[in-house]
């Protein structure tokens, strides 16, 4: 049943990456509990626009939890308190009338701030460019059953491939590490036959890039797994460690 609630928002406002930011406090009017978090921000933004003020900038695209564009830290938790959901899929029925919400951008040295809640996550793109792909010759696709993949392996690979690259793992990690993201990408390709030719080169290159980009290192604190909207398991972090160790010890690649 539809109800309305009113909230106090403390939102991080910052003109651009080099200016000083600060929290601004806003009171929402009545917000329908059927709304998503982003729709609630839309309502607030529209009102600000009508008042001649700058609306709050935030990233979004699909609004159905599959693209990985949205994300902010709500009351200290990346994508808010609801487990296994992106911010766009977090609904206002999970909040109570009168709640105060502190809304901050994802914070990491590797994700420089662009404006308000929008951060630049192209560090993830650089990581993918470094090895998060398979090289295949063009031509007719081979018959699917030529590549036999055990069911369990296919499941593990698909679980890892669920990663939408939103960056919540980095935002939630006390060390700002990107291990869950890189672990998911390395795992999903290392598990599948298509990923084998570049398996060692991939993990070595991606780890080197990860360090270059200024991410922190893993303390196995598991906040990444808990915050991940796709519930990517930290067993992928263990697999990344294993793949890296194996490639460092045994592979010909530099």
């Amino acid at each position, binding site marked *: 049943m539809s109800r309305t609630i009113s909230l106090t928002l*403390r939102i*991080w406002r910052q003109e651009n990456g080099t200016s000083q930011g600060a*929290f601004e406090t806003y009171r929402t009017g009545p917000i329908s509990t059927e709304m998503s978090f982003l729709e609630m921000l839309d309502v607030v933004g529209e009102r600000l626009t009508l008042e001649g003020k700058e609306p709050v900038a935030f990233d979004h695209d699909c609004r159905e939890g599959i693209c990985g564009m949205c994300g902010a*830290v709500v*009351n*200290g*938790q*990346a994508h808010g*308190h609801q*487990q296994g959901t992106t911010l766009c899929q977090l609904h206002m029925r999970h909040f109570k009338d009168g709640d105060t919400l*502190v809304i*901050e951008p994802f*914070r*990491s*040295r*590797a994700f420089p*701030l662009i404006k308000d809640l929008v951060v630049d996550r192209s560090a993830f793109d650089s990581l993918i460019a470094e090895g998060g792909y398979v090289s295949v010759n063009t031509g007719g696709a081979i018959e699917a059953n030529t590549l036999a993949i055990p069911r369990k392996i296919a499941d593990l690979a698909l679980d890892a491939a669920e990663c939408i690259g939103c960056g919540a793992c980095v935002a*939630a990690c*006390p*060390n*700002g*590490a990107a291990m869950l993201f890189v672990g998911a990408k390395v795992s999903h390709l290392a598990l599948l036959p298509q990923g084998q030719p570049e398996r060692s080169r991939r993990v070595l290159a991606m*780890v*080197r890039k*990860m*360090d270059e980009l*200024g*991410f*922190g*290192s*893993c*303390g*196995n*604190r*598991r*906040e*990444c*797994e*808990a*915050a991940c909207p796709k519930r990517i398991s*930290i*067993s992928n*972090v*263990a*697999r*990344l*460690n*294993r*793949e*890296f*160790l194996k490639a*460092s010890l045994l592979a010909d690649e*530099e």
Partner: protein
Amino acid sequence: MGRTSRTLSSSLGRKMLMAASGSFLSLFILVHLAGNSSALLGRTTFLAYVDYLHSLGVLLHFFEILLLTAFCTHVFLALLLFFENRKARPEPYAVVKSSGGATLAGQTMIYSGTVILLFLVLHLQNFLFIDRELPVADLLRTVLGNPALAVIYLIGTLAVGLHLSHGLWSLCQTLGLEHPKYTSTLDKKAALLGLAIGLFFALIIVVALFYPGFLL
């Protein structure tokens, strides 16, 4: 840079050194605990253990040097990673709340580690850098019979328990030792083992403090 140094200086390599030195220190802790617990079996057993240890002579010194190397590596990397990781988030969050992953032990590794480090200074002063006039059994009675020292020893050993309750699982994860068959409960088992080690050390201290016949 050579391949080995490049591997070991990467973030993953450093963590692997951390885990390797941590494993070695954990093995030492287990052997140390096994040896110390002979004190619960009485003076003769305990002194026989001590005599055996000293009869190792140069071998003992070899392991002391290994231990010192592992320890220094571990502490150096712990501090290096701690300060580097702080830089990975230059602008802190106004509100920090766990999404559900964090454990007390995991969050306090650097602090429990520091307590262990401080405790070790005292511990080595009490037992290693000292003129050995008294038999070790009597030295132990004097040190642990002092309530103030006994409390410090309790804090030190409980810090070891806390450190290991996260560390034993964390090292498996860092070294990539993971499999669906055993990983789902590995964290809990490792935490229990870590705490059990700390509590067993603590038990010896409590017995020494409250049982007047300890090592007589």
